[in-house]
């Protein structure tokens, strides 16, 4: 049987490709892209206010609410602003670490650092946010550490959201910058030094321009992840972000939740178009 099947495929590359791709393409195109299409369509549905039933017709009600209600404009504005702040913060924090890993550390040190950055990136998202909740609370580590200095921590609020998200997405920024810096040939840096440039000039005129697309690549992740997160705002603030409103509407107004879910998609598409112009795609 397997022999006969094998003979069928032998010398028929198109048949082989078809057989290999049927499953994955079926799953991802019909299942996943299909779901995204449903999301797009559902954004134009409405909910009957009396029965709570979903009415499947073409209506711009949800989009109008999003555009016209000041509260949603504020929430979208707040989310995008925090996303931008988190991105800048992470770029500033990540660069020295990535630079040390790529250009200064020994071979062994480099291996250890990569693992050290990699492990927390992959795991325990919820546990990390929860830990920050305990740290930022009234009796938490932060207030305890700052008390001798006569200071106290930011408590819960927008500052906490900014801090925690910068923390959560930092490894996503470190790794692309590290990879980007690794690709800069040492000879370029030596050449700059031999030609008399100070380390600062070398950094500003040689390293930074070459690493910039990698920073943009990292920013795609910090930006996208911030736009979609609703758990961090829930745990360390009382403020609403796009994700919270989607979450709150999912059970009683699915069409409105769908319309709102289009906002991160639209913002990300715009962001990606800019990122592509800046040459970030080679660094992902």
């Amino acid at each position, binding site marked *: 049987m397997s*022999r006969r*099947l*094998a003979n069928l*495929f*032998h010398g028929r*590359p*198109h048949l*082989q*490709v078809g057989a*290999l*791709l049927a499953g*994955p*393409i079926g799953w*991802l195109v019909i299942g*996943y892209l299909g*779901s*995204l299409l*449903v999301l797009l369509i559902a954004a134009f549905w409405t909910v009957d206010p009396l029965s709570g039933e*979903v009415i499947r017709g073409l209506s711009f009600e949800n989009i109008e609410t999003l555009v016209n209600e000041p509260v949603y404009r504020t929430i979208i504005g707040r989310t995008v602003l925090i996303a931008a702040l988190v991105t800048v913060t992470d770029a500033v*924090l990540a660069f*020295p*670490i990535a630079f040390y*890993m790529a*250009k200064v550390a020994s071979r062994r040190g*480099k291996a250890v*650092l*990569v*693992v*050290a950055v990699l492990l*927390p990136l*992959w*795991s*325990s*998202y*919820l*546990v990390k946010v*929860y*830990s920050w909740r*305990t*740290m930022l609370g009234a*009796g938490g*580590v932060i207030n305890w550490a700052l008390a001798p200095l006569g200071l106290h921590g930011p408590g819960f609020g927008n500052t906490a959201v900014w801090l925690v998200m910068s*923390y959560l997405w*930092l*490894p996503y920024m470190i*790794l*692309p910058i590290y990879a*980007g810096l690794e690709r800069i040939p040492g000879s370029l840096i030596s050449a700059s030094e031999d030609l008399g440039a100070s380390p600062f000039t070398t950094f500003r005129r040689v390293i930074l321009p070459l690493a910039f697309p990698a920073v943009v690549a*990292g920013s795609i992740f910090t930006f*996208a992840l911030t736009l*979609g997160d609703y758990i961090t705002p829930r745990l360390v603030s009382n403020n609403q972000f796009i*994700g919270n409103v989607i*979450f709150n509407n999912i059970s009683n107004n*699915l069409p409105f939740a769908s319309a709102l*879910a289009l906002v*991160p*998609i639209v913002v990300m*598409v715009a962001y990606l178009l800019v990122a592509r112009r800046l040459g970030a*795609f080679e660094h*992902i």
Partner: protein
Amino acid sequence: MRLSRRSALLLRGAVAVGLAFIYVPLIVIAIYAFNSSNVLEWPPPGLTLDWFPKAFESESVREALLTSVKAGVVATTIALILGTLASLAVARHRFFGRETISFLVILPIALPGIVTGVALSNTFTQVLGVELSLLTVIVGHATFCIVVVYNNVVARLRRVSGSFEEASADLGAHTWQTFRFVTVPSLKTALAAGALLAFALSFDEIIVTTFTIGAGEETLPIWIFSRLFRPNQLPIVNVVAVLVVLISIIPVYLAHRLTREEGGAAAARGGRAERAGRMEGGGVEVEATAVP
């Protein structure tokens, strides 16, 4: 690069601060798991092991652990099959639309989890009329885990030359024999690494899970989340939190070890694609991949 002593010192300081920033929250929660008081105040008044047996005795913790493991194992199996098939097609064949495949595979993890969650939930409940359950969670998890397997296997296939497979065919092996005796052995560690990472990703996931899970069912992250706002539950939550960290961190470390020996130092690639499992191979190599 030549650095002055002062700037080298400054740089070291920055790295130390950055690493401390990354690890302090994980250490804090690990210490709280041994907190003798049931109030979360720093510093803890004393240390105790009492919460560990209490956590393991809890019926709901055991059930949630079982649910998480089931979801992780089945989602990983699906991702392993679909990811390997897609990578074989992309790495060993030329066909129209080949470039779009990696874009398609990465999309579920490149879009915010909440978008994937709402989209799948919409489709299940409104279009297919399926009741949300563990099965719908598995579908969601498998969707974003495919990329992990795919990236690992594609990277390996690019490294292992296709001429081995050609040689096998020339020597008279038929397609299946070549696959079984030539392709699979060369992919073994890449498949294992992909599976470990997919499992870790699934085990840790909460957002897509929240939107696709049925009423009354809980994975471990959902278990934690639903108890965070009940102060009397927090000592056990801390223990479960440490458990979740360990169960997700250990597979990642193992996967790293598995793919490391091939090329020396460390394996890591950029960004979210990193998370998406491109740990394959040695030094950092960033390839242009069609990401949205």
